[in-house]
Structures are given as C-alpha cells and as structure tokens.
C-alpha cells in the first residue's frame, strides 16, 4: 500500500520564519511593511488577498510531491468550504482535505456540496471529520449538542451522507436527522465518496471512528501513549470490519544538521513573551485530544530542552510547537536524516499516512519535499495486525 503524505494549508495566516510570534502573511497580524498577502504599498494594500498566498502554498505542495493538504478549520481561520472550490481550478493533483464539524452542515446538502466539489476537482476531496471541542465553547458555533452526543450525531451524519450518495430513494429517521425519499441526482451520485480522515481521542470518538473512518488521524503524543491509543482504534475498527488505517499529523522543523534546526528553536524560545507557556498549556474546550497532548508536560519548564519528548528512543521530538502557532504541540526537530527516521519509525510501527507541516508553509513544503521525503524508506509490509503497536512498543 502506498503512503499518502499531505501538507497543511494554514488558513489562519502564516509567517516568514518559524521562530517569530505573530503572522506576517495574510491579515491576521498588524498590517505593516514586509507583510504579504495583502502586501503594503504606497496605497496601503497591494490588492493581494490571503487566498492568493494559500493558492501558492497548494501549488508548492503539489509540485513538491505532497498528495494534497489539510485545510484547517477554527473560528479564526478562513473557511475550507470556500477555499477548496476556489483553489480546485488553480491546482492539478492537490487533494483538499477539508476539516469540518458535521453538525454545522445538513448532511444532504453536505453530500451535494461534496459531490459537486468532486466533479469540479475530478475527485480530489477528502474529509477530516472533527467532532470534539478544541476550539471555543460549542455555543460560539450555535451548537447545543453535548460532547458524546456529538459523536452520535457525526455517526448519523455520515450514515445519511452515504445513504443519499447512493441515489434515491433514501429514507432515514434518526435522532438528529430525518430524510424522506432523498438522494443525489445521477451525475453527482456517480462521484466517488471522499475518503474520511477521522479525528478525536475520546472513547466516543474511537467508537465512531471504528465505524466510519478510512483513516484515524491523530496528533503526535509520546510514543507509548500514542500507540496504545492506536491499538485501541485498530481493535475497534477491525470489530466493525474496517481496515483501521491510521494517519499522523505533525510539524517538521528540519535542517541540514540538528544544530541548525535546534538553533531555530532556541531563537524562538528567546523571543517568547512571559506567560506564553501557561497559555500554551491552558485548557481549551472539551477536547480529550488536547488534554492528552498536555499530559506530557514536565513539572518545571526552564529551557526548551525540557519539552523534548521520547528522548530515550531517539532525538528529535519536541513538544513546544504550539508556542509559535495554534494547534498540536509535538513535532519533529532535527536534521533531514533524523526527520526521515521519525517518519520511518512511525511507518514501521504501522502508520499509513501523514499530514505534515512547517513554517513558512510555502518554502518548507519545498524543503520537506526535496530533502526529507526522498530519505524515507517505505515499510515493507502492508497489513498491520491487531496488537501490532503493542509489539512495537516491546521491541522498541
């Protein structure tokens, strides 16, 4: 089986350097000379919009060999359902992995939107279904449904979406959705259903993922904790008769030498504002995944080295990425070889796909595509049996 490697599209803005705080690409920061998309000129703005830059990143990623990108979705980001169709006609092979909460869109209309997007892009839509918190309170979104019920709703959502996709007549009478004689029209229903990447770390999430996910998508956690979770996911999926493929999502800060890479981290560390650490470890929403990420935090953090993870296995995992941007904390820092070794380590442990990222997203797409991906030796086995991760833990 071939390993799909995605890149991230930063719909929250970007910046020219990893180690600075605040965004200078897009309009999330204070507009000033040196800002891009929009840029600053004698009239104030040069007329570029952030979508121009996102399109450039998508093209950089596809030409560097990434199969597509994750379009992240938070209250402060631009919206993937607007960006993906806008960029579909400006890219050739780039797959659009749209992050969304199913509860926010009616499943029948979501099916039509998705099928139209498949027709437009010739089959390049992928879902990243998110259900838990992680953002602000759900009522910000106008969503009254509680955490575990949201997974039940996600499950129904995907049942309805699949049902109408097969065409009429489809009837459904559930807790959250009621459909009578529904179904997509012919040229739309002939489109392939998008692959589903499913996120969420709670028991409710794992149960729903087992039923619906093509790939279970996780942030990095400390190795042992992560693979115990992935075993749980796989076991559940196999019970449901599904393959239980897993994908990992993390940032890579890779340079020719480890020293160069860590110098970037060190520079960033010195530029941190007081309180940045507390903010990073602060609780947000009801996301179990966020809580699990925070669990590795040492009691005292005086130096960026204190945030190293799994140092006993191999150098190169660091848990401070969210000091410099929103999102998951743990990622890879090191030489090109070390970064490739981490990818190989995860592949050997049974991972099936990656969603990678680096800042700045445009230049780092080229760098990771040119310097890191060529060093990866794809694993030599295809099927990962239940309990595999447990054995890997013992072996490592």
């Amino acid at each position, binding site marked *: 089986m071939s390993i799909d490697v995605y890149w991230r599209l930063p719909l929250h803005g970007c910046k020219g350097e990893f180690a600075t705080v605040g965004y200078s690409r*897009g*309009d*999330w920061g204070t507009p000033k000379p040196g800002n891009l998309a929009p840029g600053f000129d004698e009239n104030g703005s040069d*007329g570029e*919009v*952030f*979508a121009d830059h996102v*399109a450039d990143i998508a093209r950089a990623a596809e030409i560097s060999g990434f199969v597509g990108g994750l379009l992240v979705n938070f*209250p*402060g980001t*631009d*919206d993937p*359902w*607007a*960006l*993906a*169709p*806008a*960029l*579909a*006609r*400006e*890219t*050739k092979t780039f797959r659009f992995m749209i992050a969304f909460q199913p*509860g*926010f*869109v*009616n*499943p*029948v*209309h979501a099916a*039509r*939107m998705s*099928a*139209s*997007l498949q*027709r*437009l892009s*010739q089959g390049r839509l992928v879902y990243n279904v998110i259900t838990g918190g992680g953002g*602000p*309170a759900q*009522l*910000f*979104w*106008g*969503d009254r449904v509680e955490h575990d019920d949201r997974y039940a709703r996600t499950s129904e959502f995907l049942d*309805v979406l699949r049902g109408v996709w097969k065409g*009429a007549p489809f009837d*459904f009478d559930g807790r959250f*959705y*009621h*459909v*009578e*004689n*529904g*179904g997509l*029209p*012919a*040229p*739309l229903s002939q489109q392939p259903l998008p692959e589903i990447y499913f996120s969420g770390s709670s028991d409710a999430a794992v149960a729903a993922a087992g039923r619906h996910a093509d790939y279970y998508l996780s942030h990095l956690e400390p190795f042992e904790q992560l693979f115990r979770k992935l075993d749980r996911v796989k076991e559940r999926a196999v019970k449901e008769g599904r393959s239980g493929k897993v994908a990992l999502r993390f940032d890579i800060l890779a340079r020719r030498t480890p020293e160069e890479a860590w110098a970037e981290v060190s520079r960033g560390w010195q530029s941190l504002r007081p309180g940045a650490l507390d903010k990073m470890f602060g609780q947000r929403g009801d996301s179990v995944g966020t809580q699990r990420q925070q669990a590795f935090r040492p009691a005292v953090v005086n130096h960026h080295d204190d945030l190293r993870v799994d140092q006993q296995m191999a150098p190169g995992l660091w848990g401070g990425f969210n000091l410099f941007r929103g999102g998951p904390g743990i990622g890879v820092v090191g030489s090109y070889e070390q970064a490739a070794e981490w990818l190989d380590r995860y592949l050997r442990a049974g991972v099936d796909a990656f969603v990678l990222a680096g800042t700045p997203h445009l230049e780092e797409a080229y760098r990771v595509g040119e310097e890191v991906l060529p060093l990866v030796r794809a694993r030599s086995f295809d099927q990962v049996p239940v309990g595999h991760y447990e054995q890997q833990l013992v072996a490592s």
Partner: protein
Amino acid sequence: MSAQIFWTLPASGDGRSASRAGFSRGDFQGITRRAHGQGLTDDRGKHFTYYDQLFQVARAAESSGFKGVLIPWEPTGEDPWIVASALVRQTRRLVFLPELEPGFATPVYLAKMSVSFQRLSGNRLAWQFELERDPEVRRAHGDPLQGDDYFQRVDEYLEAARGVLITRAYDFQGRFYDVEKGGFDAPLAGTPPPPIFTSGSSDAALSLAGKRSDFHFVHAASLDATKSAIARLEKSASAHGRSVKPALRLQVVARHSDEEARAAARDASAAAALVGSYDYVAQRLDTYLQIGVERLILRGYPHLEEAYRLGEHVLPKLSVRRVEGQSAPSLLPNSNLQLGSN
C-alpha cells in the same frame, strides 16, 4: 441606489434548446457530449468538466456587462455554493448570488463560509433563499418542517446568520438556534454581510421578506401582476419600518425582429417570459426598471451565446444612467486577472 442586471448560470446543464432532454452541455442527461465524426482527432478525453463550461458562461456574463450571476438551486443540479466558490477567483468583478437552502448549514457556519468568500473575492457575495421550496423536496433534504414552524425557523436563521456577521460577542436565543458569544475576530471581523435576496409569493414569504430581506423576487406574469406584487412587498416592508427592493427573474429570447424571436422561442420550446426584438425587450426591461425593480436577473439558452447577445444588443439600449455596470467598460488592463490551470 441604481438598478443592476444579472445573468444566470445553468447549474443543471445547458444546451442550444431550453428543453432539458436536449442538453448537450454537461452530463445531466446521461450524454457527455457529441462525439466527432469518424476519423477526426478528439483530444478532449477527460480533461474537461462541466465547471469548465460554467466558467465560460461566467466570463461571458462578466465580459458582456452583467453585474452578477444567480446560481439557481435545483434538485437535479450542482451545488450553488460550490459553483460560486469555484468560479469567483477566475472572475474579476462579477457578483455571485448562489441560491442556498435556509438551513443547508447552521447560521453561524453559513456566516463563516461567507466571510471567507467575501475575503477572497473582494466582497462579491449575495445570498438567495427560496422561501417556498416544495415540502417534498425539503423532506428529501432532511428538512421536515412545514408552515409556521418553517417560516419561524427561517426567520431565526436569517436573523442569526446576519447578526453573527456584524456583531462580536453575539448572543441569540431562539426556538431553533442558540448562539453564545459568537462572532468573528480580526481579520474576519468587519466583513460586509452579503445582501439577502429571497423569493416566494405567499403572505408568509412576503411577510418574512419584509422583515429580513434586502431584495425580494416578484412576479413577472404581467406588468400589472408585477406592480401589485411590488405594492404588497412595500406594504410588508413598511410594516417593519424597512425598505425591500424588488427583483425579477426573466427568461429572455431576443432577436433582431419580433418574428425571428418568436421563431427562436418556438424552436427552443422555451417557456420564455419575454420574447421579442432587441428594441422591444429593451423597452420592456426599461419598464420594469421604471416601476421600481432594482435587480433584473436574466437567462436564455444557451447561456453563453445569449449572454453575449443581450450584452451587445439589449443592455446598451437600457436607460444607462439608472443601471450600474452597463457603462462603457474600462480598457485599462486589470492586473488581478486570475488564470486557471486546470
């Protein structure tokens, strides 16, 4: 405010005739396209989708001087939101008016999608909602509500969707929707809310339009019917201390002479509301503008050729001073041109 003329994107196929069975553009009739004759090279393969054709129509409308395009929602058609988003970066000035089902996304999520659309397009989005969709069609789309319940929900929907766009720390408690501390921070904050278009001729639809809409589609069966619909709309709007502008959708067959137009309408088996010579059609459109219609949304089959025809032969004859976007186009090169690569 002056009037604007829009064109229509055919979201469920197009062809030389308005008869759906004969549509040769798009794959909605199970026909992909007419093959070349034997022995002729045809390299098109699978390189083109219906979106390439929709793009051609959008460019035709933009180039011919239409201010924007309506993208109708049809059970058999493409999703209008996706069509609008797909084409907006490849056009420069065209306003997009996708027809959306009220409830296709939650009001907050519709607002979020729309903020991004506004940001990437230079504020070229407007919303159209049909308030009287066949209940059977709505049930097929997961929306079983009927009657007063339905209108109350749409009322809440429109209030919350706009409210959350223009207010930070937006709170809303309704029967169908709750929002707590909603709204957007910079740079998403401050995006102009899309104008709201609605359609529907029942008392309930007119009452809701009077309360929430910026534009509402009125009848075109006859001039008198249009006038009385405008009067009803004005009454409904003034009950809420508001003003709602009338809009009108018209299928047009215009030719050099009335005879040619009638023949074309017969051939096209078109249920056209307006058939006649260029002069006659222009005169009628002018009449609608004079009685207060602010948005004229036109269509004709095939949509590309007819956009050019009306742009070249009819729009120049309208009372130009009242109409935005129909003045002589600027000849300056536009650096924002986005070229597609797909």
